[in-house]
């Protein structure tokens, strides 16, 4: 079956996009860049929405990029990471719905999505490096 994935270079493109968006946001806050701060203050909501979209586009590129050598083990790592991320996401939603444990930080769907993306990347590389084993 033909895999519909992006070329491996998109992994680096994704990382570059994420770093660039982080650097811009960091510089805007830390160095008080007038031009960027003007844009932020002019339409803060629009700017943050664009920032988030760019940020998640970077993550999407990383998630959908194929490995240099795309084989069944890469598929296995990908599926394991998706499975664990999905289950942890469900657990997080369940725990978040319990009033005592309600965490305001993951009320926002963007925060939740960000955590899920980071979890996916961690689990993917953990599986690849053998930190998560196949257990029958």
């Amino acid at each position, binding site marked *: 079956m033909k895999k519909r994935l992006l070329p491996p270079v998109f992994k680096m493109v994704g990382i570059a996009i994420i770093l660039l968006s982080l650097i811009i946001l960091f510089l805007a806050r830390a160095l008080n860049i007038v031009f960027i701060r003007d844009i932020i203050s002019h339409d803060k909501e629009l700017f943050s929405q664009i920032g988030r979209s760019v940020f998640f586009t970077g993550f999407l590129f990383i998630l959908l990029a194929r490995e240099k*050598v795309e084989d069944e083990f890469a598929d296995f790592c990908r599926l394991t990471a998706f499975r664990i991320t999905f289950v942890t996401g469900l657990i997080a939603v369940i725990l978040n719905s319990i009033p005592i444990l309600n965490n305001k930080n993951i009320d926002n769907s963007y925060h939740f999505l960000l955590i899920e993306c980071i979890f996916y990347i961690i689990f993917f590389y953990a599986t*690849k490096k*053998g930190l998560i084993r196949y257990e029958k």
Partner: protein
Amino acid sequence: MKNNLRYYREEKKLTQEELAKMAGVSRQSIISIEKGHYIPTSLLALKLSVVLKIKTEDLFILETKDWK
């Protein structure tokens, strides 16, 4: 499942990289199979046995716990 991949690879004087290239997989796949972290599909198991010129059942051995 136990496997003798490392033993037969070293017997054939192949590096992990060379075996990976011959079987058309990544070196990481060979490392994971050798360490027992990953059990390959029948397709890859057959490819490895063809590349190493070893019977598949000699390369991958079922253990008692695999029947449970």
